C-alpha cells in the first residue's frame, strides 16, 4: 500500500487493466463489430429497437444514425476519461455520459426531422438502455485508448445499422411492397401487412437466426468432413 505513495508520477507504470482486450490492429477492432462479433446477430444485444422500429427502411436509417452517434461519442468520452472515472461508480458515470448524448440526439432529431422523431417516438430516448452501448463501454471503451475505442464504436455501430437495415428492407419490401417509399411491384401487389406488424418483427428476426444457424451447421459439417 505505502509503496504506491512513495512512487513519483513518472515512475508509475501503465496500469494493466484487468480484462482489457488483447492488443490487435485497428482495422480488426473495426471489423469485429461488423462480422465476428456483430452486436445483433452474434451477441444478440439491442434486440428491442431492432425489432420495434424495423417496419420501414427510413426508420432503420434514422435509428442507426442516432445509435451510431451516441455510441461513437460516448465511447470516445469514456475512453478519454477512463483514468479519471473511479472504478466503483463507473457504471453510473457511463450511463450519465450515454444519457447526455442521447438527449442531444433526441433534441436534434426533434428540431430537424420532427416527422422521423414522431415515428420513432420513445425509442430514441430508449437508446440509453440499449445494451450495446453500455456493453461496449464496460467491455471495451473503459479499458483502452480513444483510438481503439473509436474504431470499435464505428464497427459496432455499423454492424448494428447493417442488421437493422437487413430487417427493415425485408419487412418493408414484403409487408408494404415499397423500398424507402418507392413502389417496387406496381399497384397490383397485395402487401403482406402481417410483416410490418409486431409478429412480423419476431418472425423476421427468427428467420435471420435460423439462416445463421443453418449456415453455422453447414460449416461445422464441412469442417468435420475435411477433418476425416
Amino acid at each position: 500500500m505505502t509503496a504506491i505513495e512513495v512512487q513519483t508520477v513518472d515512475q508509475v507504470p501503465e496500469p494493466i487493466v484487468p480484462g482489457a482486450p488483447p492488443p490487435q490492429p485497428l482495422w480488426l477492432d473495426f471489423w469485429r463489430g461488423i462480422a465476428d462479433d456483430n452486436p445483433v446477430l452474434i451477441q444478440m444485444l439491442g434486440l428491442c429497437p431492432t425489432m420495434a422500429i424495423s417496419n420501414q427502411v427510413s426508420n432503420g436509417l434514422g435509428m442507426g444514425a442516432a445509435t451510431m452517434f451516441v455510441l461513437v461519442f460516448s465511447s470516445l468520452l469514456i475512453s478519454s476519461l477512463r483514468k479519471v472515472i473511479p472504478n466503483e461508480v463507473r457504471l453510473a458515470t457511463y450511463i450519465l455520459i450515454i444519457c447526455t448524448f442521447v438527449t442531444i440526439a433526441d433534441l436534434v432529431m426533434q428540431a430537424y426531422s420532427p416527422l422521423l422523431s414522431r415515428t420513432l417516438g420513445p425509442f430514441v430516448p430508449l437508446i440509453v438502455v440499449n445494451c450495446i452501448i453500455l456493453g461496449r463501454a464496460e467491455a471495451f471503451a473503459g479499458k483502452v485508448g480513444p483510438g481503439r475505442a473509436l474504431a470499435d464504436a464505428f464497427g459496432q455501430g455499423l454492424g448494428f445499422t447493417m442488421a437493422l437495415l437487413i430487417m427493415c428492407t425485408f419487412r418493408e419490401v414484403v409487408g408494404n411492397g415499397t423500398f424507402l417509399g418507392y413502389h417496387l411491384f406496381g399497384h397490383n401487389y397485395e402487401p403482406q401487412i402481417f410483416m410490418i406488424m409486431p409478429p412480423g418483427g419476431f418472425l423476421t428476426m427468427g428467420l435471420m437466426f435460423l439462416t445463421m444457424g443453418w449456415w453455422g451447421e453447414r460449416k461445422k459439417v464441412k469442417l468435420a468432413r475435411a477433418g476425416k
Partner: protein
Amino acid sequence: MIANLSWIFFSTLLINNFTLAMFLGLCSFFGVSTKMDTGWRLGAANTFVLVMTAIAVWILNTFVLASAPYLRTIAFIVVIASLVQIVEMTIKKFLPVLFRELGIYLPLITTNCAILYLALTQTTRGYNLAEGIVYAIGGGLGLTLALSLMASIRERLDVADVPAMARRMGLVLIIASCLSMAFMGFAGMGSG
C-alpha cells in the same frame, strides 16, 4: 373514472402488451424464460419496480421537471437506477432466498427498456397518479404473462427433438412470433 382506469389496465395488459406488441424488455424475456419459476418471479420484481417508477415519475413530473423538461431522460434513468438499487438492497436483506434466485437479472432491471418506456409514455400521455399506477400494474402483469407463457412452452421444448440449426434462438423467436400473433387478436377490442 373506473371505466377509464380499467380501459388503461386492459389495453396495456393485452392489446399493447409490453413484450409481445411493443418489443420491450426482450433481453430478460429471452434470457430468463427458460424456467417457469424464475420467469414469473422476475415478472413480479419488474411489476414492483414499474409501480415504484410510476409513483416517482409522477412526483418528478409534477414538482421538478416542469421547469426543466430537457433533463427528462437523465432524471428518469437516475431515479430508476436508484429505485432498483433500493429494491435490490431490501430484497437482499429480507428475502435472501429470492435474491439468490434472481441473481444478475435483479440489477439488470435498470436497463430493462420497459421501465424507461413506462416513465416516458406516462409523461407524454399526461397520466395522473392513479392512472400511472394502473398503467404500471397493467404493464407489469403483461410482462409477467408473456414471461410465464414463454417459459411454459420452453420447458416443454427442453425434451423435444429440435433440429440443430434452430437450437440457439431461431425457434424461440418463431414461438414469440406466434404468441404475438395470438395477442394481436385482442386488437379487436379497440386500439389504445
